């Protein structure tokens, strides 16, 4: 099976990559938790914020509102598709920039906060990315790395066995598709280590739980059905599951079927969103 081209990110990211739909659905799903995460940063008007990997831009809009009117939030993404989606979703004057995070044209020591969610693990070298983002911080500025699902998500509260098989199947798929080992896939859990390797201090971390249960709102329904059941699972997992498990999964994910999971009164979804924050140290005064 195809692996990522040699000079791309480890998930095959290129300017042509398009996760727009999935990103929009995630931001709609997780808006309360993402806003709570932003609130936890205590942003103030006048601050300069960079959203590194801004995707479809919803979060960039919330960051911009938190620092308005004197401050600004600049969004950067590699994908042409994400940026055009963001342009459509945000006020016209929102600054957006298309560039590679490892080679941005931005001046060093510029930002009070660099916010980067579900992004650094898309690059082949997340440490180099964290260092490059750190270089953009003024001394005392903060790098906030957000990452979904450091713990396995709970989709089928009533069937831990099927969920475990599913997780294994997804790992096997990513191993074949992108050449990633389980260690590689779960490297996203090393957020604290990344911040340490980037030379940041006063590191803290906090996890927000995205918890939804029956009856689901439209955002949760759309995310689970479109992004997970159809986008992440679906036919592509067939080779990685037993026939019986795949059949059961198909029934649970089929809105036409009476077993459709999202109609169950006991449906209960859990996903974590973790925000790790570190501060760029002030230079040591001479003679210390």
């Amino acid at each position: 099976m195809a692996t990522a081209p040699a000079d791309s990110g480890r998930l095959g990211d290129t300017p042509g990559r398009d996760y727009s739909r999935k990103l929009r659905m995630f931001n709609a799903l997780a808006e309360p938790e993402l806003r709570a995460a932003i609130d936890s940063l205590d942003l103030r008007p006048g601050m300069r914020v960079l959203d590194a990997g801004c995707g479809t831009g919803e979060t960039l809009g919330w960051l911009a509102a938190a620092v308005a009117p004197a401050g600004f939030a600049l969004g950067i993404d590699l994908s042409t598709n994400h940026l055009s989606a963001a342009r459509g979703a945000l006020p016209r004057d929102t600054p957006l920039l298309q560039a590679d995070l490892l080679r941005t044209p931005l001046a060093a020591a510029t930002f009070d906060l660099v916010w980067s969610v579900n992004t650094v693990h898309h690059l082949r070298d997340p440490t180099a990315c964290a260092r490059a983002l750190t270089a953009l911080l003024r001394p005392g500025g903060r790098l906030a790395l957000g990452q979904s699902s450091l713990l396995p998500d709970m989709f089928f509260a009533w069937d831990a066995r099927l969920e475990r098989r599913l997780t294994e199947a997804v790992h096997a798929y990513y191993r074949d598709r992108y050449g990633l080992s389980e260690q590689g896939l779960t490297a996203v859990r090393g957020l604290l280590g990344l911040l340490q390797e980037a030379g940041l201090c006063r590191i803290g971390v906090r996890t927000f739980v995205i918890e939804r249960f029956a009856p689901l709102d439209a955002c949760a329904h759309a995310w689970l059905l479109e992004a997970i059941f159809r986008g992440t699972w679906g036919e592509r997992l067939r080779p990685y599951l037993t026939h019986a498990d795949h059949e059961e999964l198909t029934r649970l994910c089929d809105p036409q079927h009476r077993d459709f999971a999202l109609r169950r009164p006991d449906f209960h979804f859990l996903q974590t969103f973790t925000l790790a924050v570190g501060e760029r140290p002030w230079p040591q005064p001479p003679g210390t």
Partner: protein
Amino acid sequence: MPMDDAARIVTGAEYVRAITARASDRRYRRAFQRLALRLTAPGEALFDFGAGPGIDARLYAEQGRRVSAYDIDPHMSEYLTSHCRAFILSGTVRLQQGNYREFLSSAAPPAAWRAELITANFAPLNLIDDLHELFAKFAALTTPTGAVLASVLSPYFAGDLRYPWWWRNAAGLLRHGRYAVPGAQALIWRRRLADYARECAPYFHLEKVFAGTDSRPCTRPVWLQLTTCRFMFLLFSKPGRTHDSSAPRDGQSRATRAS
């Protein structure tokens, strides 16, 4: 600025409305922007001469270019400062201010800001009497491989034939290679290609001519193709250098990730 109603335009916002009002102007502008982006790669430095309100400067910055911008008009620079604020504050756009003499005598930029491409969109060069000294300045602003891309008024545009001033000056164009007519800001100079080629030497040579609608170079006879466009785009290169404007320089191999 080569527009009939230029005299009453005072603020950046009004100017932006004026230059984006006509569909044909928007087409010329987009074609020029596309060409400028093809001739540069993300991360490279670009100098926007006659940047006006900063519409192009911001677009280039959004595409990952580092942009220096200069405009003679402080109202335009004021608008640019607000239009490109986040980019200026994050170090991807820098504004140079001052009158034209100050611009010509300004210190050379730091090496990192020497431009791979100087852009002059929407005919700022037509307001310049002495192009030779401007090209000398352009040479100082560019890297050894740097080039100049200028959108200038075509002296051959058939649409201008209805104006008496065109007929009054046709002989001068043939004989001297240029003529000037009064404009809102300054004299507007219309020049033949040979005049541009003469004025840019020895710092640059006129490498390619594009009709102002697409990014393919004109083929011969050039002047005939230029009768249908109000603007023509001129690419000036350093002696001995040539450019491939057909392939984007920011293709995936240049623009993608870590190695």
